[in-house]
């Protein structure tokens, strides 16, 4: 499915959008989460409601544009456009330290993306449209004509990779994330974790891997180790958080570490698992943020120690929370299991050490989530305010239920999704199995 219109002919930029197996489910996730987020903010956003929806829809447009762009220029424009609504969503409707968080978010992303723009412009002058004989931003042509020398590839990989790694975020570029996720309004956190981070991992899949394959092979150990550090570090830091939202935010660092590890395993299982896990993370973490938002609306605190014994007064809420937490941990029959299992298989196939370390990360995930669950839901009610908490309403539960159904579905029967992802990923992998890299075969994972 492709849409192509002239936009700025004098520089060869075209309004060129399309969908393939890599972007399809990310697009579905984007549109689904946006609707659920707007439902979730129905009763929680009372100030400047029009502006809130304006920015949310602008954000959605930007995200769809990023995932669907088949023109480097459109991609960059969308990548930048989506910064502005997020800046306002955090800055206007956010928590206490929202100003700091939103400016930090903006500057981190901007710093990465300007280098990407330099990379895009460099590629532009090395991509020629055979029909017109002029330079073009066409992504497909840029990919097919990307036979750069290895040192050029390295620089381009870094220029693009930095922008993506900040978005993912790859350790040690993650410091904007806990602030932004914590200060954003609930719906903002859901979109940040659910979709915005995926723009980084998607970028690696769409740009770095197919366009700079040799550089990718060279950077595999670097990125894999940073992902492993992210997995462990994110989990350990999440464990000691006092704030529920911050805990979920750090868990994202760990989860995205898995995604990156799977991508850079560069084999079928790893890539499929990592793409599926991107969707899974959107579902599970999105649901977690929504759930935290539910109690926050009642008590206006996110500190774990302010709760305790909540399961007694909010039994339905506690049950939903448990299911979502288990899906985030990756228990069998939930979505997290399928994704992480595939990633770990891929990681083992590429390097056993990576596999071993990553597997221990799965255990850590169980530790921080279950421990938080225990402290919030079990035990005696120590705070008087908690004894009168109203259980989750149907309206609040509806978006979460949708996500839970999806989580179980993917956990039990992921085939329809995997089958649509695999052809596109196979095409991507062929780049790495072509003869021109035969001298690198020793490095290639089998």
């Amino acid at each position: 499915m492709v849409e192509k219109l002239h936009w700025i002919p004098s520089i060869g930029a075209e309004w060129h959008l399309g969908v393939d197996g890599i972007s399809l489910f990310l697009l579905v996730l984007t549109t689904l989460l946006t609707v659920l987020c707007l439902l979730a903010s129905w009763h929680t956003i009372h100030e400047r409601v029009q502006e809130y929806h304006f920015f949310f829809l602008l954000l959605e447009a930007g995200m769809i544009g990023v995932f669907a762009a088949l023109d480097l220029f459109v991609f960059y424009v969308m990548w930048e456009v989506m910064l502005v609504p997020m800046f306002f969503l955090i800055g206007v409707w956010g928590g206490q330290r929202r100003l700091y968080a939103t400016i930090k978010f903006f500057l981190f992303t901007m710093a990465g993306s300007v280098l990407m723009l330099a990379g895009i412009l460099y590629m532009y002058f090395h991509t020629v449209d055979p029909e017109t004989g002029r330079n073009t931003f066409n992504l497909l042509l840029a990919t097919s004509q990307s036979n750069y020398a290895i040192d050029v590839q390295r620089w381009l990989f870094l220029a693009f990779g930095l922008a993506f790694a900040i978005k993912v975020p790859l350790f040690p570029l993650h410091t904007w994330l806990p602030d932004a996720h914590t200060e954003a309004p609930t719906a903002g956190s859901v979109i940040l974790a659910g979709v915005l981070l995926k723009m980084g991992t998607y970028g690696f899949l769409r740009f770095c891997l197919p366009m700079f394959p040799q550089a990718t092979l060279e950077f595999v150990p670097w990125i894999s180790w940073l992902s492993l550090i992210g997995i462990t570090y994110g989990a350990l830091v999440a464990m000691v958080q006092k704030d529920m939202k911050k805990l979920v935010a750090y868990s994202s660092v760990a989860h995205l570490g898995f995604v990156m590890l799977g991508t850079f395993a560069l084999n079928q299982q790893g890539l499929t698992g990592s793409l599926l896990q991107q969707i899974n993370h959107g579902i599970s973490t999105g649901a977690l943020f929504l759930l935290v938002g539910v109690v926050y609306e009642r008590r206006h605190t996110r500190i774990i120690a302010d709760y305790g014994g909540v399961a007694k007064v909010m039994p339905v809420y506690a049950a939903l929370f448990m299911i979502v937490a288990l899906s985030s941990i990756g228990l069998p029959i939930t979505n997290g299991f399928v994704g992480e299992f595939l990633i770990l298989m891929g990681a083992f196939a590429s390097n056993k050490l990576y596999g071993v370390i990553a597997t221990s990360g799965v255990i850590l995930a169980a530790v921080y989530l279950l421990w938080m669950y225990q402290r919030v839901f079990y035990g005696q009610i120590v705070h008087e305010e908690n004894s009168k908490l109203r259980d989750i309403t149907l309206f609040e539960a509806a978006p979460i239920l949708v996500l839970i159904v999806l989580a179980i579905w993917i956990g039990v029967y992921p085939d329809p999704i995997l089958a649509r992802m695999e052809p596109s990923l196979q095409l991507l992998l062929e780049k790495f199995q072509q003869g021109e890299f035969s001298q690198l075969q020793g490095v290639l994972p089998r």
Partner: protein
Amino acid sequence: MNLNDVMGVLPELIVILTALIAIIVDVAARERNASASQGVTVLGLLVAGVVAIASPAETAMLMSGQVFNDGFASWFRALFCAIGAMTAVFSLVYLKHRNIRLGEYYSLLAMCVFGMMVMGSAANLLLFFVGLETMSISLYVLVGLRRDDSGSVEGSLKYLVLGAFSSAFLLYGMALIYGGIGSLEYVVIGDALRDSTGIGPMTVTGIGLLLVGFAFKISAVPFHFWSPDVYEGAPTTITAFMSTGAKAAAFVGLIRVFGIALAETNEHWVGVLTVLSIVTMTLGNVSALRQTSVKRMLAYSSIAHAGYLLVGIVAGSKAAFAASGFYLIGYALMNLGAFGVLILLNQRGKGDYSIDSLRGMGTVHPVLGLTMAIFMLSLIGIPPTAGFFGKLFVFSAAIERGHLLLAIIGLLNSAVAAYYYLRVISTMYMAKPEGDVAITEPMGYKVALVISSILIIVLGMFPDQLVAALLKAVP
């Protein structure tokens, strides 16, 4: 001089006429109607701008080769008229609230515009100098307009001394080039340099002095010391006018003289310009980060933008000059607009323009807030705005010509700059308003702001028409 020549400089003639009528109207009608001469000026400048764009450029040269009549000249004539008209629109409120009652204000403004137009279409160094002085002398007066304000007087004096100083550099440079080549006409200079095998020390020295003179005029670091004080001391309307109009005029001169006439000698000055560009944008941005007064911040930011524009001169291709043109047009819209909002919001203040005076203004005055946000986003260079495409075109022209590192430094600089522009937006929208925030918002004023912000967005979505037109117009 024949009829064709007269028709060619019709826009300039209209502007001079406007200057004269404005002062007469002021004398005749000030007691009854304070806005009469403003109305005359806005109308006259708009007519001149439309004539400049609409008149077909039949011959490339006028007045026996002294004046360019190409598309580039037309575009910039129109731009200067628009900047002048916009400044005049902003002026009424400002002059009233600052209690400045000087009839010659609008007349001087029109004279400035005339000087800029001459700078933009001059084909002879001497004529360029005449235009420059016409503009500068009017500006010296306008900067010092607030005679009871020591900052204004100080700014005016500084501008006068350093302006005279830099004009001297320019004149010496021109004299030496005349000595070395034997002509002051751009075309003759260009031809002579193409034909000769090498250039003598006299010409090289001349080019060096010319470069210093230009660097002063565009306030490139390290020749920028005058500009923050002058920009801060000057009446805010004049600051807006100078930072857009005077800068654009100097850049057209730079494109015509260095980019085209002296292009053959570029191995002598491209390195210097590259360094100037890097230090200008970096120092401008870093200094802007620390400012608490928005007016002063915009002064430093305009230094930074001069640095980005220098990238276009360094790149030195047709595409780069068209890009610079696009940049200057976009920059005029967004910077004038930003100053315009600032003037309106600060009509009660003592003129400190501290960032805190903007607290919560986005909610209290939604139209002003929205336009200011668009101006700021455009100054950062976020798509879809004119500012984004200006930067994109300039930097891509630089990359095309192999100045990759310069482009990367420029791009990184725009990420740094994002901080101080964002601070304005976040103060306007994410802080609570304090004290009395009622202001008068004249209709025409608001319309001007809304039109410029719409133009910024339109240029940011559909830049193709303008870029294609500029590419065709570049000499």
